[in-house]
């Protein structure tokens, strides 16, 4: 039986572990040179920080994950630096590209997609300036490269990553000039009871917020970012506080992020249907609680199958592998399956509270000024999208045909969420009704002479 696991983050590592335990030798494909995922990303060779310095409270989990990752590589057909850029579900074949060049077709009987997530953004005037990054990007810079995106950055958005990244920058010696959370304090406080479903993580979050205040990092909650100022690069943020007073705060970099969105393009190409998850404010590929897609032989786990965080990714990765093994009538651990199901149910309650505590500010996206570029690849503005709506584009793919939104080099990864808000608002319908940009191969750009082969 040919089993392929795509992705070597927390979900992929735990999926492969269960497959190998059952005697299966999967093909294991990872786009990066090494596995580990984003939260527990390892720096390249030559960096010397300890796991404790790199991952803080996640150090133990990171060490265990990396130990399993390294132990599993020789027991699989391990293919790092390899991008899956297309899937032909009717033939059960993946198209891959290794080291930016070598093409291959990889057949599969069963497939586990562990494709992760990226930051969800809200475009602002000036967000294409040098010095503006995602929150995840700001964190990767520090973790995997030991550099700050600036010496006095401003961090903007909402969610746990906002606060965690701010503290990491403060500790590294680049104290943020401002942490701007669009969510009011009370919205977060109301969810405290629900977040006790994962008490250690919740208390750690409270500790991070307290530590930032102790370090004297300026914090604004219930605030609105208005524009990023700069010529060659970001030099200030214009923003409005909860009392509607406007401020200009100087900085040398800005990081933006409002939670995460699944990187689910491959599930789309595999033929998996998607549902709108109103709580997460994301489109998520359809799957059962164990990770089975309604497409035979396709399984999904981790943030790519719906945002759950790194702990859930480990649980759901193992669970999806156990589902695959059970479906294939191979030995699978019934006690572990029951344990994982219980843990996943509890974590879902925590995640529901977390999503309510840090909501995507959809109204800000809907109210975006006409001149703001929604698509940074091809500088397509909110006004152009509204013109598409006026020209009778009732849903996203029609708006794409009219305006080129989502046709740029990132394939709608960044603009998809905010563009749907702008379009829905212009049409006076819900964001679920305008749909989502359909995935298209190649899921990331590849050299033009290759796909013809």
């Amino acid at each position, binding site marked *: 039986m040919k089993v392929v696991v795509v992705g070597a983050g927390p979900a992929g590592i735990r999926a492969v572990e269960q497959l190998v335990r059952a005697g299966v030798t999967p093909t294991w494909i990872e*786009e*990066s040179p090494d596995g580990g995922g*984003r939260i527990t990303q390892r*720096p*390249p*060779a*030559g*960096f*010397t*920080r300890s796991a404790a*310095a790199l991952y803080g409270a996640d150090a133990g989990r990171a060490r265990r994950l990396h130990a399993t990752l390294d132990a599993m590589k020789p027991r699989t057909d391990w293919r790092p630096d390899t991008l899956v850029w297309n899937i032909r579900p009717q033939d059960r074949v993946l198209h891959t590209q290794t080291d*930016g060049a070598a093409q291959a077709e990889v057949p599969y009987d069963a497939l586990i997609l562990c494709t992760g997530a*990226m*930051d969800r953004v809200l475009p602002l005037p000036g967000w*294409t*300036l*040098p*010095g*503006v*990054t*995602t929150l*995840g*990007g*700001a964190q*990767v*810079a*520090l973790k995997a*490269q*030991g*550099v*700050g*995106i*600036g*010496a006095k950055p401003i961090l903007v958005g909402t969610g746990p990553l906002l606060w965690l990244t701010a503290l990491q920058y403060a500790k*590294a*010696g*680049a104290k943020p000039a401002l942490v701007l959370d669009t969510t009011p304090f009370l919205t977060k406080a109301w969810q405290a009871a629900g977040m006790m479903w994962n008490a250690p993580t919740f208390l750690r979050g409270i500790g991070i917020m307290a530590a930032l205040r102790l370090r004297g990092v300026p914090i604004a909650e219930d605030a609105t970012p208005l524009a990023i100022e700069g010529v*060659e*690069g*970001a030099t200030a943020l214009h923003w409005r506080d909860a009392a509607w007073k406007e401020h200009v705060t100087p900085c*040398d*970099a800005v990081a933006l992020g409002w939670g995460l969105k699944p*990187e689910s393009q491959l599930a789309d190409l595999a033929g998996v249907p998607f549902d709108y998850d109103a709580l997460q404010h994301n489109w998520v590929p359809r799957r059962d609680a164990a990770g089975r897609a309604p497409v035979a032989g396709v399984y999904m786990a981790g943030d790519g199958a719906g945002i759950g965080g790194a702990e859930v990714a480990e649980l759901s990765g193992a669970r999806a592998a156990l589902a695959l093994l059970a479906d294939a009538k191979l030995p699978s651990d019934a006690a572990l399956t029951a344990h994982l199901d219980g843990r996943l149910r509890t974590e879902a309650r925590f995640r529901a509270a977390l999503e309510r505590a840090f909501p995507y500010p959809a109204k800000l996206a809907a109210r975006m000024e006409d001149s703001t*570029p929604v698509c*940074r*690849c*091809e*500088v397509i503005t909110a006004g152009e999208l509204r013109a598409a709506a006026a020209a009778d584009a009732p849903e996203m793919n029609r708006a794409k045909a009219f305006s080129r939104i989502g046709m*740029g*080099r*990132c394939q709608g*990864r*960044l603009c998809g969420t905010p563009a749907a808000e702008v379009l829905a608002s212009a049409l006076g319908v819900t964001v679920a009704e305008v749909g989502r940009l359909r995935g298209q191969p190649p899921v*990331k*750009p590849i*050299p033009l002479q290759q796909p013809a082969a």
Partner: protein
Amino acid sequence: MTATRLLDQDRPGLIFTVDGVEVPARQGDTLLTAMLTAGLGHVRTSEFGDGGRAGFCWMGACQDCWVQVAGQGIRRACTTLVQPGLEVIRR
């Protein structure tokens, strides 16, 4: 913009070139890190007339840090490690 070296920077130095000019870097730097910490400010120029770009996601998703590398074609600066003598051309 200038990225700032903060932690874990005790690595051997090397030299590569950007648009024909020698630029110092350290082993383990990505091209994005090396170019932005060296003060180059941007890694490419937008084809749509809105100025320089210096990447955005730092994790290979947004495709906003494309550079030309001699002998390798177009590469993402954020996922390509710098090598001694590597020749980068900003587009």
